[in-house]
């Protein structure tokens, strides 16, 4: 099987962490690098979390720290969702390796430049690093096969009525990505609010009886407690959808749409505006995920997390 070479860019974050657990256990993917972004927590915290996750998973790939703040907007974090550490809950191993000395954008540039085949970027945080890469190195666009990201929502928002958190944090960066011309898959709230993991699913994962599974179950439980208070019946595993669509695209329903990002406004900053009725008469620029086979998604997670008991990845 030909593997898809990817760079994981994210701001872990419980759902980023589980997205990476899924990616690292998926033979369809070849993780070339990991870069951190600021979003769910400060760049210091998300970078430390990225190192701890790689240590837990025995994932030996270069890890680099991303930009300390969004391109233009003021920084904002989500401690109410992910806790003060950005990844509250179970105790994780301390990092057993050093960060790259170069920053995230330089690492991305290097990986993409030296690769013989185009790279796919999977972003599960604000798109700051990805946009900085595209602005600084437009010549590399042809070597980026695809950008799959979690962010936005063509119907509603979550952080505000019109905007989803990752896009709201850095709307200008998202705007750069949507205008890039690179094939885009958008895993926004339209699909991720349907990617619910119910308490009985946590138990399936917990009984897998391997160290990673135990921690994933605790992360899910932590993530669920926050969402339960908002009236959710399960934990919406937003970020893992951006990985799952590469591993098992047949789980998803999608629509090709022209999407733009609102960067100003009293109420709509960070909204991903889709032209449902083709009013603008321009070609679609994104594959927008709209639905998911929830049970198939849970089964995929369980199947892949089970692998951590059988083999020790290096």
């Amino acid at each position: 099987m030909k593997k898809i070479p990817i760079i994981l860019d994210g701001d872990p974050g419980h759902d980023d962490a589980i997205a990476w657990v899924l990616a690292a256990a998926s033979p369809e993917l070849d993780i070339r690098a990991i870069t951190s972004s600021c979003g769910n927590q400060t760049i210091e915290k998300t970078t430390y979390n990225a190192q701890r996750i790689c240590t837990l998973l025995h994932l030996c790939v270069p890890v680099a720290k991303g930009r300390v703040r969004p391109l233009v907007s003021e920084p904002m974090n989500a401690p109410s969702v992910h806790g003060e550490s950005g990844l509250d809950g179970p105790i994780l191993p301390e990092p057993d390796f050093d960060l790259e000395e170069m920053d995230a954008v330089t690492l991305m540039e290097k990986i993409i430049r030296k690769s013989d085949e185009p790279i796919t970027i999977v972003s599960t945080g604000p798109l700051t690093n990805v946009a900085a890469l595209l602005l600084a190195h437009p010549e590399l666009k042809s070597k980026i096969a695809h950008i799959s990201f979690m962010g936005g929502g063509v119907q509603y928002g979550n952080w505000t009525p019109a905007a989803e958190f990752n896009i709201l944090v850095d709307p200008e960066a998202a705007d750069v990505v949507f205008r890039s011309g690179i094939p885009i898959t958008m895993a926004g709230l339209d699909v991720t609010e349907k990617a619910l993991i119910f308490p009985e699913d946590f138990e399936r994962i917990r009984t897998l009886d391997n160290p990673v599974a135990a921690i994933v179950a605790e992360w899910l439980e932590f993530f669920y407690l926050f969402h339960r208070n908002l009236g959710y019946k399960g934990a919406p595993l937003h970020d893992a959808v951006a990985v799952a669509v590469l591993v098992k695209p047949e789980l998803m329903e999608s629509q090709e749409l022209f999407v733009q990002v609102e960067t100003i406004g009293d109420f709509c900053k960070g909204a991903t505006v889709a032209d449902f009725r083709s009013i603008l008469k321009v070609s679609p620029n994104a594959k927008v995920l709209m639905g998911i086979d929830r049970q198939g998604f849970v089964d995929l997670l369980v199947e892949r997390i089970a692998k951590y008991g059988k083999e020790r990845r290096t």
Partner: protein
Amino acid sequence: MKCFPVIIDCDPGVDDAAALLLAKQMPELDIRAVTTVAGNVGVDQTTVNALRIRAASGAAYPIFAGADKPLFRERIDASAFHGEDGLGGVAYPVPKEEIPAEKAWDAIYRIAKECNGELVLIAIGPLTNIGIALAKYKELPQLVKKAVIMGGAAVGGNVTPCAEFNIYADPHAADMLFCSGIPVYMCGLDVTMKAFVTPEELDEIGALGSSQAKLFREVFQMGQKKYLEWGMKGVALHDPLALYYAVDDSIFETHHVGIRVETKGALTLGKTVTDLYSDKQMEHNAYIVMDVNREVFLQKVMELMKKYD
């Protein structure tokens, strides 16, 4: 339901015309006035059209003309859809009548006072007249029971990807209404696009026999072609739906929500931002109508049109 006083603020407009034809036959409505505003076409033309429909329906309510342009923006129109005359080019006589000098916003306030808090505003055009009334008369919100509007959308748009015509035409006036304290019932594209009438159903109405039923069918002929080109099953009865909602909400799905209008966005100007479930709860100032039983609604439209001889 007992009869209640209403003012219908409108910009006829083919679906406004259809709504006015239906309104005449609704025993629940005590129509105190029809006020006109620039929207689908200019206000001189929407006023002439209101006169034409009043004559056609045999009604006797007073008509007051209102704003000829939005509060702060340049005027846009929808003559591409409604025709240069705003009524789809129907051959229908223009009455030679004068209208009162009183302006729409003054009439709205005066009538609201006369109605002792019972007045329902049914606004099916851009909300400029109501915006001016709110600007001029600070006690107006206490005098109006509620406003039922056709406009906006929680999701999507029809003039831009995320704005509907009536709100986009005057977003500032719309936001003034949403902030006024008057309970607003918003029938936007989410529900009105579901209230389509197929060409066959429209022909059925047209064949009822009366001149009014014939007119109801005729005003939609031009717009119907566009809807069918867009892949819809028929023309949407936007304004009749909002009008009907005011007398019978039992066939609709309604949610109590927060709604504000974006007035500064680059792409989102005129979007009715609707807080159905975000983390940041807006004040619940409005009701959004999301669904309708189309078959029952069409049946009611048919029954009302049958009342014309």
